[in-house]
């Protein structure tokens, strides 16, 4: 059984865990009080910086470093945007924090705003989370009543308002500049960077954008200290002075073909296999695993042989995945068709591409078209190379798009075909015995419409 005593999830599952009363009875807001009494904002940034906390939203950028990019002595206002547009397939840890322990998140936001001198925080929350929305609003109301929010918080020369802002079911709003555009009332088309949000973000003012789980970590760092945080996880690589390491606890989401799907807290660096076996009770129905998504569908695929990969910020990249992402592990058993997996992935990205950059808009559309055709038994071996050509050329890594959505679209294509090519070729030959060598253009099939 798991050895790690949960910290971020310590209150989850307790009765009335979402209320201020329960939160305060378990040490809630002591970290904030300590920071407000003992630290200047610059020291609070230093605290987060020295913890090496890396953003939990997907990119793993060091949080304190991000905060320190804000211009010094800016006349203000400075804004904080909290990204609660959790939409990466397989990911639900932010929802659990917001529903069951919203105060832990809010405390981190208050500390973060004090450190960055932000006076307004917008919490951008996806419309699919109505329960989170209610719980957060209740918690915010409690905070105003108790003096944790509003003017001169706990007597300090620091005032803060937090406003919830609901999205409208678009994955791209989870991209930080897409979020900013959406918050401003526009279509969520990501911005070309630079300028980075820290210099010119929402309403053209300096802005930091942080994830929900990141803010819960800030709460715990303020309460328990930097040394506690750095006692957990994987240390920096001594041979690489720029490696910030993978410190702290992490909320891993486990779903798919697993006996006990759920959100589990473990030190960063647990292997995929440990997560599946020790936390998830193994692959369902007594079957063997075939593959797993390491951190949301954008990150690509681990094969069963790669299940011993540590799920820290450096691990998945070493076996050809895009990265740790959101640490949402989706398990696929031995009966899963990789064609179905890739079709599902291409369908998602084709639906969610915002349409701004041609390589992404067209690339995601045509990769879905090809997968629809392959699935229907009209695939050609040539399609696999075409798919790889798309996969290798869309995204910010090859440098053809503004944001990383299409890197996320590309990775499942590249990993599925390169790691399971034999299965794709066998399927195409078997289902299209007379046409699999065709190289001339073939008509596309219709694609199902009818989403929100």
């Amino acid at each position, binding site marked *: 059984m798991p050895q790690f005593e949960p910290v971020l999830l310590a209150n989850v599952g307790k009765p009335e865990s979402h209320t201020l009363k329960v939160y305060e009875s378990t040490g809630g807001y002591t970290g904030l009080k300590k920071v407000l009494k003992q630290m200047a904002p610059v020291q609070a940034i230093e605290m987060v910086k020295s913890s090496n906390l890396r953003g939990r939203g997907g990119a793993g950028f060091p949080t304190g470093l991000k905060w320190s990019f804000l211009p010094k002595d800016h006349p203000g*206002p400075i804004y904080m945007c909290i990204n609660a547009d*959790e*939409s*990466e*397939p*397989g*990911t*639900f840890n932010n*929802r659990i924090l917001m529903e069951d322990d919203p105060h832990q998140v809010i405390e981190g936001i208050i500390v973060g705003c004090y450190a960055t001198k932000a006076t307004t925080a917008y919490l951008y929350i*996806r*419309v*699919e*989370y*109505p*329960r989170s929305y*209610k719980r957060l609003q209740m918690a915010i109301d409690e905070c105003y009543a108790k003096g944790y929010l509003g003017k001169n918080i706990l007597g300090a020369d620091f005032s803060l*308002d937090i*406003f919830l*802002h*609901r*999205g*409208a*079911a*678009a*994955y791209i709003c989870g991209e930080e500049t897409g979020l900013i555009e*959406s*918050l*401003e*009332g*526009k*279509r*969520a088309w990501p911005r070309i960077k630079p300028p980075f949000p820290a210099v010119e973000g929402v*309403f053209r003012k300096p802005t930091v954008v942080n994830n929900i789980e990141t803010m819960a970590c800030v709460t715990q760092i303020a309460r328990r200290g930097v040394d506690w945080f750095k006692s957990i996880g994987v240390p920096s690589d001594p041979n690489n002075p720029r490696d910030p390491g993978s410190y702290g606890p992490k909320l891993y*989401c486990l*779903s*798919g*073909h697993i006996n006990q*799907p*759920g*959100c589990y807290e473990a030190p960063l660096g647990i292997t995929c296999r440990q997560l599946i076996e020790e936390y998830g009770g193994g692959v369902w129905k007594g079957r063997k695993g075939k593959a797993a*998504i390491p951190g949301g*569908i954008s990150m690509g695929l681990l094969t069963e042989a790669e299940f011993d990969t540590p799920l820290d910020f450096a691990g998945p990249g070493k076996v050809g995945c895009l990265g740790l992402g959101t640490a*949402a592990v*989706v398990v*696929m058993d031995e009966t*899963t068709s990789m064609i*179905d*997996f890739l079709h*599902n*992935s291409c*369908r*998602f990205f084709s*639906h*969610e591409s*915002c349409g701004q950059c041609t390589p992404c808009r067209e690339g995601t559309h045509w990769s879905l078209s090809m997968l629809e055709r392959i699935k229907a038994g009209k695939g050609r071996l040539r399609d696999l190379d075409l798919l790889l050509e798309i996969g290798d050329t869309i995204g910010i890594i090859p440098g053809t798009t503004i944001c990383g959505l299409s890197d996320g679209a590309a990775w499942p294509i590249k990993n599925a075909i390169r790691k399971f090519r034999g299965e794709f070729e066998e399927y195409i030959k078997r289902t299209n015995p007379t046409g699999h060598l065709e190289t001339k253009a073939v008509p596309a099939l219709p694609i*199902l*419409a*009818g*989403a*929100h």
Partner: protein
Amino acid sequence: MSTATHTRILTDEMIAEIKAFFPRYPSRQAVTLPALHVVNEKLRCVPLQAVVEIGELLELPPAVVQDTLSFYGYFKQDAPHGETRAWVCRSISCALRGADEILDHMCKVARMHPGECSPNGKLTIEFAECLGACEMAPCMLTGEVLHKDLTKESAERFVKDLIGK
């Protein structure tokens, strides 16, 4: 659009609710999504005339509001969605546990295509991308209610209860 349809759509109540958002943001345009939500919650769609009136309130050309609205497929414009709007998740964690089959089955039972509203106005079925409830897959969201661990049987019961069969 004929002039006959140009009767005002936004009620005083909706206008007050929208205006309450103004102090939260340094720009009026930022109230676009909140305003669209206010109208959508009442009307289950945002007709073009409402877009014009939101534009007046936010001091924006209607085309600017429409540009934003049209980006988010969430807001329907031509007709209201059903009293219950069912979002059946089809992303990977749900798909691995049979979501596509459940969506197909629901549409078959309801004799509808995804995106359509039942003739009695009670149910719209739509597919959704990840609802963030993967530990309860396959799942469906109807308003504020999350239906977890769906089966073909439970989904069929849900549809029949609403369309009356």
